[in-house]
Every structure is written in C-alpha cells, then in structure tokens.
C-alpha cells in the first residue's frame, strides 16, 4: 500500500516518469516494433495523450486540443483504479488492463477504435505494466 499512498496523484510528471521508464525498456522495441499509435490514458477527468512509435513513447500531453485530431483509443479509469493497477503487486481485478475493462467488472472503459488496442495488446500490456516499476 505504501507504494501508492506515497504517490500524490497521477499528474503529467508521473506520466513522464512512466514514459521515460518505458523508453528504457529493451523488450518493447521488439515486441512493440509495429506498435505505432496515439492513445489516451484517462485518469478521473484528465486525459493524457500518449504518442507511440515502434514501441517507444515519443510525446505525452495533458489534455486534448483540436490540433490533436483525436486519438485511436482511450483507456479511462478512476485514479483509485490506476493506483491499484500500478501497485508493485496489484490486487485482483486491478492487475491487468483487460481484467479492469472486462464487461463483468468495468473498472476501466476502452473508448474509440478498439482494433489497435487488441492488435497491440501484448506490447501495450507490457508497457502499462511498467507503471509498477516507477
């Protein structure tokens, strides 16, 4: 519990720490070689746009603007849910992105075009799991 209690909130700085950790990962350029997408991580009412090319994060931004021309898909959940997800050992139902989104549980909503979500699920799962390493 201490790991996420110490985390005050999921602000842009936190997202940046995660993105830099993602870009240090040596497997993502391999398993995410074709993972090129623009997706949103939604935390409570705030959307963070994440631009990915070849498994590396190229840009993050807080909030969406008309110049973004939208995004492919969004993963939106409460900060409390992301807090559980990013624990070193996450609790049941919050330990996996599909577990959170599954229609039985609905702790996370997948919006937009779901095809790139499923196409890149392996690399995306690994990318998001690195939230547990920061």
């Amino acid at each position: 519990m201490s790991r996420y209690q110490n985390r005050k909130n999921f602000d842009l700085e936190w997202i940046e720490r995660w993105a830099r950790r993602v870009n240090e990962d040596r497997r993502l350029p391999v398993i995410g070689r074709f993972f090129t997408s623009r997706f949103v991580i939604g935390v409570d009412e705030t959307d963070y746009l994440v631009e990915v090319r070849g498994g590396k994060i190229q840009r993050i931004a807080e909030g969406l603007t008309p110049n973004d021309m939208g995004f492919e898909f969004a993963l939106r959940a409460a900060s409390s849910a992301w807090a559980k997800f990013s624990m070193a050992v996450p609790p049941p139902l919050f330990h996996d992105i599909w577990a959170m989104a599954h229609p039985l549980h609905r702790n996370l909503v997948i919006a937009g075009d779901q095809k790139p979500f499923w196409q890149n699920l392996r690399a995306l799962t690994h990318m998001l799991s690195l939230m547990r390493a920061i």
Partner: protein
Amino acid sequence: MNTHDPIVGRYVYVQCEGKTYRTYYEEHGEGIPLVCLHTAGTDGRQYRHQLCDPDIAANFRVIAFDMPWHGKSIPPADFYLMEDEYKLTTKFYCEFIIAFCRALDLKKPVIMGQSMGGNVCLALALKYESEFSALIALEACDYSPGWWIDPLHHPHIHGGEVVASSVFGLMSPESPDEYRWETWWYYAQGGPGVFKGDLYFYSVDSDFRDQLQKISGRLPIYFLTGEYDFACTPEMTERTAEKVKNSECVIFSGGHFPTSEDPAKFKDIITPVLKKIVQNDPERRGQGAGRANLVELRSPRSAERAPGRRVIDL
C-alpha cells in the same frame, strides 16, 4: 544419460456425433482414472506437472487428452466445408468426454477440468453423473459471460498474440514468470478461431444458473478457484458451490490456470482433494499407493501547441 518425463502419449480414434476424431492423449500412473480437461484454446500440456508427479501417479492413472481442434488432435476431416465458424457446444463437449472415456474403457473415472473444463463438470453432473466417481472443477462457476468476442478471431489481429495476451491477466502476478509465460505460449499456439469457438461454450451455451438445484448430490464435486481469476471470480464460484449439493469450495491465492501457472502451489491445494477421493475409493488406488506419500520517442511536431498546454517531447 538422457532424462525423460514418465509421460506416454498415444492417439485413439473417438467416435462422436457421427464423426471420427483422431485424439491425442498422454498418461502416467496407475489406479483411479483421473481424466484431465484443458482450458479453452489450449491442450493437455497444461497438466504436464501433474502427469509427472509420482505422488499423484501412485494412486491415479492420470490422463490428459487434447479435444478435437486442439493440440495434437486434428479437426474433423471435412472441417474446411463447415458453413459456420467453429463453436464448441455443451452437447458435443459432454458427449466427447463420455466417448473418450469409453474409447479407453475407463470405469467411473474422476474428471478434473479447469475453466471451460471446470464449467462442463456442471453439465456432466446434470446429465451423466453415473459415469463418474468424482468431479474436480477448477476455476468453475454456473455462468461466465463476456468472452465470446470477435477480437479473438479477426484477420487484422494476430490470433496467437491476442489470445495469449487476453488470458495473461487471468494469472496471479505472484505465480512464477517461467510458468506464466509457458501458459502464454500454449495459448499462442492455438488454431485460428479455436479459442473463440471454445468460448461459445464458456460464455454463451453453458448457463447453469437455473439448473444447479437439479444436481442430485450423488457425485461429489470439488470447486477450487484462484483469487486472481477475473473470468470466474471467487464470488462466482462460491455462489455456484452454495447451490450444488455434496460440493466443497476452496479459494486459494492463485489464478485461472493453477495446473500450469503455479504447479507447486497447485499440488498443495489439490492434495487434500485427491486424498479424499482415494479414501472414498480405496479399492482402486494404485499398487504403488503404499509407498506413496499423497499427503502432502522524434522532432517536435509542426502543429502549434495550445497556449498554456503542457507538452513533453521525449
């Protein structure tokens, strides 16, 4: 000296619903027949640790077969003429299990199935209770919706990777990485549409919520579910077990694939169940039973940024 597993694999021809299925199975041990049912889209390799376990093999003839379309068992010869996608039905699943047991001339075997293999135990208890001596339903419940979905079989999505990654989170984060990824690999190897087709049974064709009270209770049923299972949560199993006569329910700190994701932990939780089954069936325990110990990132974009908006280029 070479090291071998004690497992022996063979093929048997099984007649079911007017077709012949060349069916692969593996076995080891002697005593009470223990027929193991794999999860959706995979095969009997999920039971490799149990097949090799000398403590289990001392009392049980452990048998794990690959359902048609799975593992080393092939689809029916005319599958390319099918006018519908592959869908496993409750009727076919039950009848195939019965036909397989008969093909091996097994008398009153114990069935141990996980996930869809666990859910089918309820159908077996409803229609075929006289065929078996006990049922072990791993990660089972009366209704498990939400899995018969198109992304799992779509030409724009890599079937192996999506299927395996979709189930990865069913495992406990504390199960050993080695075995979680081995389980991922089994899933990545399934034929196109087979996992999804099995989930037709799992999420659509098998809703037992209004039938549980019809289970007589003559056949003991053991329910065991891991706390990280989000397809069949502990609450879903407990809800089911409460309504099934002569059943026991164990919730443990594991996931949806206990036999393959954490075999050591699984041994701890299954041993007391197997011990009870042996105690209830002492005449058929293996000859080796006496010596067995069963107890046990690019340049900035040209587009202008909104005033005041915080953007970080990595």
